[in-house]
């Protein structure tokens, strides 16, 4: 008997079995990936979409809320014969449309897999009901509910922003989003996406190899509930916002109103804007909107940086006072302008000579040429570069030339020229105060957004400091960024501001004041007109104002493109907004007439538009 051979055979068999065992050990215990693959295989995570948070105005009025809508989905792999005619009948679609979609999915069957594909979006509830009654006739079709935005008040399309389905690029940048999800793309919807969106939930289903649903996984033990988004209370006053939009109809420009004592943005209008009726289905109107020559997508309030015009004289006056080169009693004379060394800056006809208050009230150009020159040619400083840098420091302390840091998306910083700018323009050492004299009246290389101007106005209303403008109310659960609660002082001492305030008050009420049109019954108003020179057409009409003079409640900046003088369009619009906000209504008589004139006014023909590329 040969027992040795049996042992050899058994050893070999055992070795082979050990190899099997090692392999099993490897795939069952060491390698976790198979467990994951098994989950992906057999479990389907069906997303449960949370309701998006509402957006409220400062008084609690709803600006944006949700309604239920239905999307008709198809899982092409599970579709068997269905009643095409009935389906077309219910949804009012062509048979060819369905055939075309199915042909497309067949072509891309690898990508589609067992997934559900959207066939029709935003199906009406009436269509949905008709479909649901007969759903057994359409195997593989189902309707999913989701929420869509509705806008009870027609106010602030651009400000609110729109929500749309995320695309590839968005998903790449924002982990946690998947195809089919929606996200805020502009305005408040974008800025506060995280709070509004809530948390998606999911229901776990088993699915078999054919993609069929085989019931809940562990009876829903591991499902995750959707958490609804949080409501957001904005600082916007919905009434003023929609009133302002009425005023801005057929005009290109923007209006920004701020509550000076808090920095809260009361109104932010960019015109022409996106009508809220288009927001909910932005993709449907996207082409129309993007082809509009006046560019409604462009949020002028924070993105259009333009020369501020005479409004900027307020800043130069304050710098002059602080630097000691100007006193409230300094008198300069003006004979229809300022002429020196071959430079001429024109001015309108007004009494002469005048003091600081009068210079603000009458908006004298020559006065500020003197002021800027005395600031820059101050013997305290060795050269123009040094004094210019000092001037620039003052200007930027008002927030000009940088992003203010508001929560409005896509805010631009604007522009305040630097030494480099002029060294490049004129050559180093080849420029002097006279070279840059247009800065005195807010022209030249300055670029300020309407938000900057409103902030300037609020700063003056506060007599020397501002809060960073923001559009969300502080909330105990969601405290706003502490930076919005800080006072930001400028480099100009608060003691100098009352003189400028007085000038602005005189501009409205004093003899020769340029802002008389903005007088409102029962309210002590302060204002300053501006006319920004525009080489391409009519000048831009600019106006800043705040009211009441003491304890100001509202500071407004209006920038009306091609509106001509500040007093022509910007001042009426801004003052009407102040009146509506403070008095609740427009006084009958001249004010009502003014309101009618503004609402009926159409400046669109004056605006030169670039032909849009298709």
């Amino acid at each position, binding site marked *: *008997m*040969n*027992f040795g*051979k*049996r042992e*050899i*055979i*058994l050893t070999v*068999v*055992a070795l*082979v*079995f050990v*190899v*099997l*065992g090692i*392999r*099993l*050990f490897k*795939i*069952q*215990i060491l*390698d976790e*990936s*198979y*467990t994951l*693959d*098994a*989950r992906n*295989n*057999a*479990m389907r995570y069906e997303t449960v979409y949370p309701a998006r948070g509402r957006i409220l105005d400062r008084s609690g009025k709803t600006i944006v809320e949700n309604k239920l809508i239905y999307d008709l989905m198809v899982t092409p792999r599970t579709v068997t014969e269905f009643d095409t005619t009935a389906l077309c009948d219910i949804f009012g679609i062509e048979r060819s449309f369905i055939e075309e979609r199915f042909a497309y999915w067949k072509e891309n069957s690898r990508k589609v897999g067992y997934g559900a594909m959207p066939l029709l979006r935003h199906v009406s509830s009436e269509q949905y009901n008709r479909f649901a009654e007969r759903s057994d006739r359409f195997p593989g079709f189902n309707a999913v509910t989701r929420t869509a935005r509705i806008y009870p008040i027609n106010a602030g399309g651009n400000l609110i922003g729109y929500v749309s389905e995320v695309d590839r690029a968005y998903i790449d940048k924002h982990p946690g989003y998947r195809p089919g999800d929606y996200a805020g793309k502009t305005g408040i919807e974008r800025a506060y996406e995280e709070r509004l969106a809530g948390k998606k939930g999911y229901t776990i289903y*088993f*699915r*078999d*190899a*054919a993609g069929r649903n*085989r019931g809940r996984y562990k009876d829903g033990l591991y499902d995750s509930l959707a958490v609804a988004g949080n409501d957001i209370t904005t600082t916007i006053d919905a009434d003023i916002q929609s009133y302002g939009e009425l005023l801005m109809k057929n005009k290109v420009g923007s209006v920004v109103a701020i509550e000076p004592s808090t920095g809260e943005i009361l109104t932010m209008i960019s015109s022409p804007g996106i009508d809220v009726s288009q927001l909910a289905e932005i993709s449907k109107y996207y082409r129309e909107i993007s082809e509009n020559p006046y560019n409604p997508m462009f949020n002028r309030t924070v993105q259009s940086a333009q020369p501020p015009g005479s409004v900027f004289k307020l800043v130069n006056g304050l710098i002059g006072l602080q630097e000691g080169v100007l006193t409230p009693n300094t008198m300069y004379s003006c004979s229809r302008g300022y002429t020196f060394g071959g430079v001429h800056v024109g001015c309108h006809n007004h009494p002469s000579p005048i003091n600081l208050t009068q210079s603000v009230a009458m908006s004298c150009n020559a006065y500020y040429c003197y002021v800027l020159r005395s600031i820059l040619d101050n013997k305290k400083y060795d050269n123009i570069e040094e004094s210019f840098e000092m001037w620039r420091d003052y200007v930027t302390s008002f927030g000009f030339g940088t992003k203010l840091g508001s929560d409005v998306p896509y805010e631009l910083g604007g522009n305040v020229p630097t030494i480099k700018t002029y060294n490049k323009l004129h050559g180093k050492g080849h420029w002097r105060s006279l070279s840059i004299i247009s800065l005195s009246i807010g022209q030249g290389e300055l670029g300020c957004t309407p938000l900057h101007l409103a902030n300037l106005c609020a700063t003056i209303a506060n007599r020397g400091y501002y809060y960073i403008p923001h559009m969300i109310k502080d909330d105990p659960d969601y405290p706003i960024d502490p930076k919005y609660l800080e006072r930001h002082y400028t480099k100009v001492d608060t003691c100098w501001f009352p003189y400028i305030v007085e000038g602005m008050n005189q501009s409205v009420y004093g003899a020769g004041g340029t802002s008389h049109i903005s007088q409102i019954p029962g309210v002590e108003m302060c204002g300053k007109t501006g006319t920004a020179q525009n080489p391409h057409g009519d000048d831009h009409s600019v106006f800043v104002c705040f009211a009441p003079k003491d304890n100001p409640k509202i500071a407004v900046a209006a920038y009306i493109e091609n509106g001509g003088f500040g007093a022509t369009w910007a001042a009426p619009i801004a003052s009407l907004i102040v009146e509506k906000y403070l008095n609740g209504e427009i006084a009958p008589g001249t004010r009502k007439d003014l309101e009618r004139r503004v609402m009926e006014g159409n400046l669109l023909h004056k605006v030169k538009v670039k032909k849009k590329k298709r």
Partner: protein
Amino acid sequence: MREKGIIRKLDWPLAVCYLVLILFGWMNIFSALRGDNTNIFDFSMQYGKQFIWICISVALAFCILKVIPARIWNGTAWFLYGVEILLLLAVIFVGKNVNGSRSWLGVGSFALQPAELAKITISLALATLMGRYGFSLKTTSDYLKVAALVGIPALLILLEGETGSVIVFMGLLVVLYREGMSGWVIALGAFIIFVALLTLIYSPFVAEVVSIGVFFLILGFHRGRIIAWILVAALSVTALTFLPKVFEIEAVAALSLPDISIIAGGLTVLTSVILVLRSFIKSSRNSFVRNALLALCAAVLVAVAVDICFEKLPEYQQGRINVLLGKVDDPKGDGYNVHQSMIAIGSGGFLGKGFLGGTQTKFGYIPEQETDFIFCTVGEEWGFVGSIALLVIYFFMISRILLLADRNKDRFARIFGYCTAMCIAMHVVINIGMTIKLMPVIGIPLPLVSYGGSSLIAFTSMIFIFLRLDMERNKI
């Protein structure tokens, strides 16, 4: 008194293993296919049918143990062998075509797979042939007899398209080894398989170079001058690896010579043949070197032949082989079965998902999950612990059969026992190996566990014929 005899004489450990396996298999078939059904006796489903097959098998086992005399197997082996050959022929002409192989015979509502039964008849015939007095595996004619005995049914089964069953017969080489065949034959066989694999994974040229290296090494071990021959092996292999570079030279490439593997192979064979002939002329007594040279020739020829055959294989088989060798990764196409079965088994983890708890098998991700891929359910629901336990049971069965076989004084019983054990071993290794991507997808069932009447009856018959023979061991 006979009753008592069975109880006392039967080898209970083996019988218990058998029962455990068939019941375990039944449970897994139910778990894999039950869907929403809770009735394991639903006879419209495979698990219901398997219950019938189990009943039939148990009845058959009882008949073999009690009713049928032990002597009959040795006596009727050739008759049964002949019947089986007829069945196999019948299948080729009137068989049902299932999944590309024509291997089923319809008998009423149940279909029979004669190829599965060939195991029994070949084993019986082999045991009869080799158990005959005077048979010694020393003459060529003895080998030819064995080859013909296994070869004829194997050829018929190949014609049916059941390649897997034929591969199982390779396990019978072990039986020959046990009965006196030189171990070198199996070693040579293993080496040839190794060469074939190298050819498929790399190229015939690489296989040739490796063969030459191995040849020199074995020569070194044989001559006792290991270092010297290792050097020769290393030098020749290094020199040969530069050969492809030579073929890249433009002037050489311009000659449009035949493939490098054919040239290198041809030269090797030529040299070997000259050397072998020389050794005959000199009537050298060193037959080892001669045999080694012949083995080298065989290896080279196999390399070239495998390469040519692979090109001739149908595309789906090429695909399966490529996936197995890891040359192609294709979880949706040819690799789908294996990919899904790996997921199912791998997701079982240490303790598994529990009986009826598997998701992959239950929701139909694995094709043929109740037959060839039943191990997926085992791996997924019983985990590493269950899988290893199953392997241990199989190993225990195999070693138990071999032990009992060696204990048996009857040569017929012993050879039949070895055949039985080797069939089980081959089935287990190939089947489980296939589900965990160690073996190509060869459709053969897991003994006693997979769904299928023919397979169950075949293994039941073999095990219980052997047990019956074992009961008689003291009678002779």
